[in-house]
């Protein structure tokens, strides 16, 4: 897909999504709440795959996000060389189910990648994600080569004006962001917006140039078409990699929404923290990335 087409497409899909949300609101007043399109779906007490199934059912199915013949890029967190139970990376069963949904919706190709922190080969293998994606029929793509990253301009960026983004993000029709909720030593929590540091090349420029502002700035560039926050197992301390199983709690939750700020606000509350205390959320909301006021959203809550 050419950049121009891509921009056209995103514009169109945002307009469409906006209208849908608006009409949803109109009906929501009088109609049964599970008939309305939801801004955010939260699921509890299930296995990762089952929770995603339930969430997508409430969201009207993956067909609302992926059209036949489209290319999809799924971006989990695969940053660390750690096994699934340590919860340093997105749950492989969840990634697998997402890829399956995309393929069932008619996606031409489903790409999965991350620009990892630890050695990428170990991360892909030991996270269990490589196998999960291959089993589901998706394609694992290396994110380790600078040549695959292209410089883009962040029009709305206050601090971050330019950064190099992986070409799969630029070229794919649909972008699904699949972060895992974790404690993070530097950012307190890492959720949807922080996860996007894995689609750019030089994160250390961000680190030395006001990290939180850069994260918020970049969130204005390409909003994912869907954010799926994995909160099945959650690193409660010593994140983002965690040191041992002592750091991990079972939360058995999942949040699905198009709005990264809403996703991160809800996930912050799940974690037991005050969203107001996370400066990155405030900065992103100011830039219009999404809404922190969850009460303004039409939320579907499902306890399995």
């Amino acid at each position, binding site marked *: 897909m050419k950049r121009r087409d891509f921009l056209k497409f995103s514009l169109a899909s945002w307009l469409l999504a906006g209208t849908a949300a608006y009409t949803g609101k109109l009906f929501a007043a009088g109609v049964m709440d599970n008939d309305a399109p939801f801004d955010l779906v*939260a699921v*509890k*007490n299930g296995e990762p795959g089952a929770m995603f199934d339930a969430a997508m059912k409430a969201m009207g199915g993956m067909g609302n996000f992926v059209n036949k013949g489209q290319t999809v890029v799924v971006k989990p967190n695969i940053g660390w*060389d750690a096994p699934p139970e340590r919860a340093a990376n997105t749950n492989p069963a969840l990634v697998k189910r997402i890829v399956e949904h995309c393929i069932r919706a008619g996606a031409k*190709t489903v790409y999965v990648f991350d620009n990892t*922190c*630890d*050695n990428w*080969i*170990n991360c892909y293998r*030991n996270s269990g994600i490589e196998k999960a994606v291959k089993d589901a029929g998706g*394609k*694992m*793509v*290396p994110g*380790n*080569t600078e*040549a695959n990253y292209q410089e883009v301009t962040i029009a709305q960026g206050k601090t971050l004006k330019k950064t190099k983004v992986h070409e799969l993000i630029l070229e794919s029709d649909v972008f699904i962001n699949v972060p895992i909720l974790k404690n*993070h*030593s*530097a*950012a*307190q929590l890492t959720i949807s917006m922080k996860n996007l540091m894995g689609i750019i090349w030089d*994160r*250390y*420029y961000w*680190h*030395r*140039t*006001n*990290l*939180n*502002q850069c994260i918020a700035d970049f969130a204005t560039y390409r909003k994912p078409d869907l954010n799926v926050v994995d909160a099945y197992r*959650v690193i*409660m*301390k*010593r994140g*983002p*990699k965690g*040191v*041992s199983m*002592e*750091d991990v*709690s*079972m*939360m*058995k939750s999942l949040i699905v929404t198009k709005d990264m700020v809403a996703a991160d*606000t*809800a996930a912050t*509350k*799940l974690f*037991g923290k005050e969203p107001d205390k996370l*400066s990155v959320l405030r900065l992103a909301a100011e830039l219009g990335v999404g809404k922190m006021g*969850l009460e303004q959203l039409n*939320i579907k*809550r499902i*306890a399995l």
Partner: protein
Amino acid sequence: MSQARLRIVRIVISLLILALVAFVFISPAPSAYHHLRKGFSFFQFVPSLLSFVSLISWTTIGFIIILLLTVLFGRAYCSFLCPLGTIQDVLVFIKRKVKRKKKYRYLRPLPLLRYTVLGLTILIFLFGSNLLVEMLDPFSLSGRFLSQLARPVFIFINNGLAQVLQSWDIYSVYLVSWKTFIPAVFLVTLGFFLMILLFSIFRGRDYCNTVCPVGTLLGLFSIRPVYKIRIDHGGCTGCRLCELACKAGCIDSEKKEIDYSRCIVCFDCIPACSGKSITFSSVPARENPEIKTFPSTGRRDFLKGMTVLGLGLVVESCKILPATAASSEEKPITPPGSLGLDHFTQYCTACQLCVSRCPTQVLTPSFFEYGWSGMLIPKMDYMRSFCNYECVICSEVCPTGAIRKITTDEKKQIQIGKVWLRKKPCIVYDQKTDCGACSEHCPTKAVYMVPYHGLFAPEVDPSICVGCGACQYVCPTIPDKAIMVVPHAIHRQAQLPANEEIPDEVLPSDEFPF
């Protein structure tokens, strides 16, 4: 079986072994195949000898078997097992495809040079530097040729292929970088390669017979091998074809004698003989009984040389020693399992196998950082990469025991250096914005974040630091890092990270907090 087939057998076996060695050294991507090195390192003389000295274990007695085989069959090691020998054979084979065949000639032995080199190598090693072992050992030389010269070519091919496949949406072959390219190391390796190339083209296996300490040492054990190449003096027509075919230059066809200390048992002479008068056997044929071959002078020369050298070198080496041991604070960081500077530099022969196989490419060949006596020995370079907390591949591939085999659990308690934080250049303390890349990457949380004026700033607990260098590598400050690892000359024990109390269980309920 016709004895001419022995040559074919030798060629096949030597090529198989070289192929195995080359595969383990060259394969561009990190792979599970590094365990294949066990298939050759047991029977590589210097690695086996060094690991025996370092580990004292029956699993490293390959060199004793080689010595016994040498007493039985002569220096077959040099023709069958030595990768450098086979590399030379291959080079000559290629050269002959390009240019006319050059006939070999009988070469006069150069005992003084041979035994001086061997004596020096041993003496310097005994005095704590393996500089000559490292420079001259044929396995380590081969390793450097393969990892510094051949591997880049394969990486180049791999990356070309990867790009073509990527354009077809196939990602099974991926781009591999070569972060550990050090021009000086590359040039030294290239220099040695050219030297070996010239030797093998113009003087056959003269490197093996005058320079190589392993060749000379084995020569001392092959003075009267039980099985050997024999010339049937009755059948010999004096046609000299055997001499012209002998790459070791050890057949004196005028005297119809073979210098067994230099014969590498390649069997090239057997099919070359016009009259089937050369055999490989334990039974003396109709040999000229009064002719004694060179050997007896070999040992004498060696002992003579050793005595002279010994006296001179005791004095000289004592002067060298302080230079290697002193100022260890500025010396590089050595990999986990290598115990520390002294052990590592004593046993590492700079074959670069760990450098080739290190998945993160943190192991980098050094040039002069260990001092001149430790040239080319790998070091941990945290400006290029960092050591993976869970990985012990270098300890599994090291053929000499310089990096001892360790388990992942053992590695987690080895401190190869410790963290040192300078708050002044640190982003958080200096620019008053959040950063925390160091703590984010720290596998033990020896670097942890504490509240600081509404931000979070790094603090360190060196007791649980393993010295992996992740913090140093990722620290984004320019030009100097705000956090780095200070080397330990002798590795220490790292405390295991404490298991803090289990966080409050988030119990499954039907309630959502929003």
